[in-house]
C-alpha cells in the first residue's frame, strides 16, 4: 500500500462498487436529505389522489381566488385547484424523467457498446451521433412531438431521442477504456469472446459512469418536459404539468405571481435534488474510472 492509498483509505474506500457507493451516499447528511426529498416527490406522485382533490375540475365562479380550505394554494384562471395541479404535475415530471433515463440508458448502452466494440459499426454510429448532436435537443424534441399524436408517451419518446446520443458517446468512450484493461485481454486469452465478453467483462465495468449520466439525463428530461408543456407541445393542456401551469400563469404574473412560483419552485427543487444525487454518485464511484468515463 503506497502512501497515496493510505491517504485515500482515510477518505473512505473508493472501490468502484455500486454497493459501496450506496453506503457512501447514505453516510453523507446532505445526500441523505436529497434522497429524502426525492422520496417525498415520489410519494407525492404515487399518492396524489389521497393528498389532493381533482386537478382538472373547472369552476369559473372561483377563478383566481386565494387559498382556502378546499384549495390550499388558491385557484387558477379557470378555477382549478392549484395545489392539486401541482401535486399531480409531479407525476408528469417524474414519469418523464425516469422513463427518459431508462430509455436513454438502455438504447445508449446497447448502441454505445456496439460502437465501442466494432470498428466500422462504431465509426458509422458515431457519425450519426455527431449529426444528431449538432441539432439542439429542444428543437429535435419539438419536431418529434409535433409529428406524433399528443400524449405523455410522445413526450417521453421526443425527449429520449436527443438524450440517446449523449449516452452513446459516454458509453463508447468508457468501453474503449475498459477494452484496454488487462482483464479483458485475460478474458480473451481464456476463450471468452462475443456476447459473453461484453456481458461479463465490458458491461459491468461500464455501469458506474452510465448510472451518473442517467441521473443527469433524468434531470435534463424533467426540464425539457416542462419546457415542452410550457410551449404547449406534447400533452394536452388539461393534463396537469408544472410547465403547463407556468405557461397558464404567465398572463397573470403581475397580479398573481404565486401561480408561477409554486410550480417553478417544485421544478427547481426536483431538478436540483436529482443533479446533486448525480454529482454525489459520481464522487462516490471510483474516481479513476470517472476520469476515463468523462467525454
Amino acid at each position, binding site marked *: *500500500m*503506497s*502512501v497515496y492509498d*493510505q*491517504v485515500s*483509505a*482515510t*477518505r*473512505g474506500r473508493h472501490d468502484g462498487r455500486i454497493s459501496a457507493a450506496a453506503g457512501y451516499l447514505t*453516510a453523507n447528511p446532505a445526500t441523505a436529505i436529497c434522497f429524502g426529498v426525492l422520496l417525498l416527490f415520489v410519494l407525492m406522485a404515487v399518492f396524489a389522489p389521497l393528498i389532493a382533490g381533482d386537478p382538472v375540475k373547472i369552476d369559473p365562479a372561483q377563478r383566481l381566488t386565494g387559498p382556502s380550505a378546499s384549495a390550499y394554494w388558491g385557484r387558477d384562471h379557470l378555477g382549478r385547484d392549484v395545489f392539486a395541479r401541482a401535486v399531480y404535475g409531479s407525476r408528469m415530471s417524474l414519469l418523464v424523467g425516469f422513463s427518459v433515463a431508462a430509455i436513454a440508458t438502455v438504447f445508449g448502452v446497447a448502441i454505445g457498446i456496439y460502437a465501442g466494440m466494432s470498428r466500422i459499426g462504431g465509426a458509422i454510429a458515431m457519425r450519426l451521433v455527431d449529426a444528431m448532436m449538432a441539432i439542439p435537443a429542444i428543437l429535435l424534441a419539438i419536431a418529434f412531438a409535433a409529428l406524433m399524436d399528443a400524449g405523455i408517451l410522445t413526450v417521453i419518446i421526443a425527449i429520449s431521442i436527443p438524450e440517446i446520443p449523449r449516452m452513446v458517446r459516454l458509453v463508447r468512450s468508457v468501453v474503449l477504456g475498459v477494452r484496454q484493461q488487462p482483464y479483458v485481454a485475460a478474458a480473451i486469452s481464456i476463450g471468452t469472446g462475443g456476447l459473453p465478453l461484453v456481458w461479463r467483462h465490458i458491461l459491468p465495468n461500464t455501469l458506474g459512469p452510465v448510472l451518473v449520466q442517467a441521473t443527469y439525463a433524468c434531470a435534463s428530461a424533467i426540464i425539457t418536459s416542462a419546457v415542452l408543456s410550457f410551449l404547449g407541445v406534447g400533452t394536452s393542456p388539461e393534463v396537469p404539468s408544472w410547465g403547463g401551469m407556468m405557461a397558464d400563469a404567465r398572463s397573470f404574473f403581475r397580479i398573481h405571481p404565486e401561480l408561477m412560483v409554486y410550480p417553478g419552485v417544485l421544478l427547481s427543487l426536483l431538478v436540483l435534488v436529482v443533479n446533486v444525487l448525480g454529482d454525489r454518485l459520481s464522487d462516490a464511484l471510483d474516481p479513476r474510472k470517472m476520469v476515463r468515463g468523462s467525454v
Partner: protein
Amino acid sequence: MIDMTSHPPVADPVLDVNNLSLEFADRDKVTYALDAVSFSVGEGEIVSLVGESGCGKSVTAMTIMGLLPKHGARVTSGSALLRGRDLLQTSEREMRRIRGDRIGMIFQDPMTSLNPVHTVGMQISETIRKHRRVSRGAAEKRALEMLDLVRIPDAASRLGAYPHELSGGMRQRVMIAMALACDPELLIADEPTTALDVTVQAQVLDLIADLRRDIGMSVILITHDLGVVAGVADRMMVMYAGRIVEQGPTEKLFADPAHGYTAGLMRSLPGVNARMRDELREIPGSVPRLDRKIEGCVFAPRCEFSSEVCLAPLPQAQERAQGHWTRCIHASAVCEAMSDNDIVRAWA
C-alpha cells in the same frame, strides 16, 4: 521509554527523527501507520529507508515534509528536527518555504511532478525565484548550472525542452536539478529509480552518489530494492509494518543481518549466480494489518526465528556493534544462521 526511541547517534545531524508515531483515523477505524520511528541523517550521508509496500517508508518522508492530509493523519508523538528545528511543529506557511529550499524532494514518477506546458528551464528558474530574490536572468543561469550538474548533455539547448520531449531518465535528472537548485540541506528521494529501466537506474544512482561526493549532499533514499541500497547507501534503516526493525551501516547489515525480517528479505532474493531452479527461501504469510496496536515484535508471526518471548511487549532496541541496532530478541541466532549468507555470496 528511552529504549523505544533509541537509535544510533550521529554527530551534528542534518535531520534527527525521534520517536515518531502516526495514525490514520478513518470514520470507523484507526491505522497505526508509524510506531516510534527514530533515525538521524548526518552531513553528506546517504541513508536509505528500505522496506516493502505499506511498511511506512513513504509515510515517514511525507510526515517529515508535512505533506500528509491535515485531517485523517495524526502525529501522536515524536519530533523531526531539521538542524534543530522541529518540522512537526512548523506551520504550513513556513513548511511551504522550507520545502524546495531547505529540503529537496524527488518522486518515483517525474512526469507527475513536472508541468507539461512549461519548459524545464522555466520550471527550474521558477523554483529558484520562489525561494530566492534573484533576477530572472540569474535564475536562468543557475538553472543551466543545475542541468550541467546533473550531467544532462547539451544542457543549454535542453533548457527550452518540454518534459515530454525528454526520456524518463532525463526527466528524473531534471527533477534532481530542480530539487537541488536552492542548495537544500537534505534531499528526500522517494523510489527515484523504480519507474526506470536498469541501465537508466544505474546512471541516476551514480549521479546521486557523485552529487554527494561533490557537493556534500545529505540524502534519504526510500526504496524497496535491496540492490539499490547496497549500491549507494552508507547506512540503512529496514522498516516493517510501521517500525524501523533494524538499522546500521549498509555493509554491516548485509554482512550480519540481525533481525529475522532483514534476514528473510535477503534470503528471498534470487541471485544471478545462485543455483538454478533452487527453491527460493520465501517469507510465509503476509504483512499484518495495522488496525490495532501490536505489543510484541511485528514480524514474529512470519519469522522462522520467533518464539514465545517475541510476543511480549516490544523488545529493546539493542546495539550489536558500532551503530548497528536491532529490535530482534533472537539477533544472535539470526546472525549465526546468516553467517553462511549464500545469497549475498552468490552475487559476489
